[in-house]
């Protein structure tokens, strides 16, 4: 990725690369130096709270808007539009021509990306059958429910069998059944060999789907790694129930221990739980129950975003 030099379709293990992207709207800096490298054939999540700069980052990567500074590469092309025929995109703001039939809408989106109209129509019909929308192939978009139209749009972004699929908040507006269907569709595309980049602020989807993820907050990337690595940024949490209800065990527990009914909740010390367990038994408090678990992506996200906000407030 050399700034200023146009590259077209240079093979890379990273279909999406961004280096230090910056974008401001007026005086507001929406994205402040975000760098990403999305590995080939993975499902990659861009996570962040509302207004974090996820959509702006994706739009810059796709070439819809240009960054103020920084470089980007999409499927080896320094100008993202050079690769647009190999990319599928579902924007956050869904939109289709209301008077088009579902089949034509899919074919139209494919045609924009270089797919022959007839092929697009044929594939669209097959995909709609597979998605359980076979009854609505010739139905106009304006006659469909919002969820159905959204699914049609997603199929339209996949009809040309892209190498890279970019989905901006794909689960919003879908009922749980369709969300599950979409998750299966995304996995299917990954299994086909496509790379999927999607943004969300719903952690459960990211936790189930993502091979790798980045967390963006305040326009900056705060974390990059696997789900396990994100969860690994938080210490283990213990849920301890002594044999006798007494406050005497408190003295042996870590400083952050808090009582919740019969149990004590606290962070497991960095050296591990073994020493603590030994001390509690020796002191006669016994162990009626002990659960040690790794916090979820949700907690990791909240902590990372919280730290980012605290930094922002301090600045």
């Amino acid at each position, binding site marked *: 990725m050399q700034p200023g030099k146009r590259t077209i379709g240079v093979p890379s293990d990273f279909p999406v690369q961004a280096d230090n992207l910056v974008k401001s*709207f007026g005086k507001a800096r929406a994205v402040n130096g975000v760098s990403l490298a999305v590995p080939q054939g993975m499902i990659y999540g861009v996570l962040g709270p509302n207004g974090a700069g996820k959509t702006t980052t994706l*739009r810059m990567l*796709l*070439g*819809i*808007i*240009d960054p103020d500074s920084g470089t980007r590469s999409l499927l080896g092309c320094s100008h993202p*539009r050079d690769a*647009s*025929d190999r*990319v599928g*995109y579902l*924007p956050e*703001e*869904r*939109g*289709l*021509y*209301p*008077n088009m039939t579902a089949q034509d809408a899919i074919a*139209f*989106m494919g*045609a*924009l*990306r*270089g797919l022959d109209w007839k092929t697009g129509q044929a594939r669209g019909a097959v995909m709609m059958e597979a998605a359980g929308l076979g009854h609505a192939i010739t139905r106009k978009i304006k006659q469909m429910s919002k969820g159905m139209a959204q699914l049609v*749009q997603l199929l339209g972004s996949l009809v040309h069998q892209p190498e890279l699929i970019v989905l901006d908040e794909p689960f919003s507006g879908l009922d749980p059944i369709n969300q599950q269907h979409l998750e299966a569709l995304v996995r299917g595309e990954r299994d086909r060999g496509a790379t999927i980049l999607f943004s969300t602020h719903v952690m459960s989807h990211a936790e189930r789907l993502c091979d790798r993820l980045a967390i963006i907050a305040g326009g900056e990337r705060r974390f990059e790694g696997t789900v396990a690595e994100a969860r690994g940024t938080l210490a283990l949490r213990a849920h301890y129930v002594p044999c006798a209800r007494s406050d005497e065990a408190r003295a042996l527990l870590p400083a952050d221990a808090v009582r919740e009914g019969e149990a004590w909740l606290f962070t497991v010390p960095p050296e591990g739980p073994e020493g603590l367990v030994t001390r509690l038994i020796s002191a006669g408090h016994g162990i009626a129950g002990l659960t040690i678990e790794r916090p979820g992506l949700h907690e990791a996200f909240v902590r990372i975003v919280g730290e980012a906000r605290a930094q922002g407030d301090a600045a």
Partner: protein
Amino acid sequence: MTRFFRQGAVIARRDFLAVVKTPTFLLFLLAPVFMLMFGWLGGSGASQVAEGASSLSRIAVIASDRDADGLRTADNRMRDYGDAPRLMVVPAGPDPMEQAKTLLETPGADYLAVMYGPLEEPVIQHEESSLKAAIWLQGVADQVLLSRRRGPPDTLSRPAFQPLKAQRAGVGMQRQTGYVAVVTVFMLTLLLAGQAVGMLAEEKSNKVIEILAAAVPLEAVFLGKLVGMFGVALLFVAFWSGLLSGIMLLVPGTGDELAALAPAIGLPAFLVLGALYFTMAYMLLGAVFLGIGGLAATVRDIQMLSFPVTILQMAMFGLATVAAGQPQTSMARFAEIFPLSSPYAMAARGAHDPSLTPHLLALAWQSLWVAIIIWIAARLFRHGVLRSGGGLFAMIGRKAR
């Protein structure tokens, strides 16, 4: 480049079908029928008013019985050469001046001029604006006196009138042909290109613009939309041209006026060039309207922004009309070169200049400007609507550096 045009064609196809497949297109196609119908109604009403007004107008001579017949004969004879309000000969009373005053003040009768007194020294009273009517009465008096001096009036010459079709177009005819070309191209463009202003409104309202902008360069989106709407305009023109051609073929004499056009470049080439210049005029004006429509956030914005463009377009029409009337002047050259007036002025040029090369250059020049306007419109759209880039001027500054 092939990919660019292919993407533009996808958008053009969608837009064309989206318009043509709707029932409102039929209304659009038949709009001239309503226009002609109301035009005819309005025109016939206006002509009735005008005819009524002219039939009420009179001129009068207060004369003795001796002069009355001679005056009527002279008036009839003069009407072979010209026209004037109906002549009334009123028998002279004791006070002709008072009679004249009464006639001029008669309610319901519109006497423009009244003559009385001896024919050698008549007094002619007339409305300030009716000097011609007064002079007509003078002519009538002259004719009576001349006939008395020379005997009964008669024509001296015995011409044989032989109507011939023009073998060679005169300068006046060529200029008239040029003017017809300017008016035709201008009217068609003004009627049809204005639709481009709302063409991006649909995409903006239903959020499709994001899909288009991600897949296709905005320049291709703009070009596709222009071509799509031009297809609609072409269908409109083809429909009406076909219909009128059919009428001309079936009803003898209806095509005489078209056949009378005598452009220097030849009628077939003139018609082809007219079609090409209509295309360029549509593309140029359509691109401007499209750019404005893309930037406008509301219908009110569209109306406010369209008004100056329409005024500009009227100015271009005026410029091109001058060029048609005064070919080979510096004003005509300017009109031929200035991009927005060029299609009209060059369409007129075909009427008086037989060379083809200037037209090829003009078409290339106008195509370049279509591309430039689309480019600017796309940049402004990207900056104003998609909020990307540093704006047109910042971008020009960057390129310059």
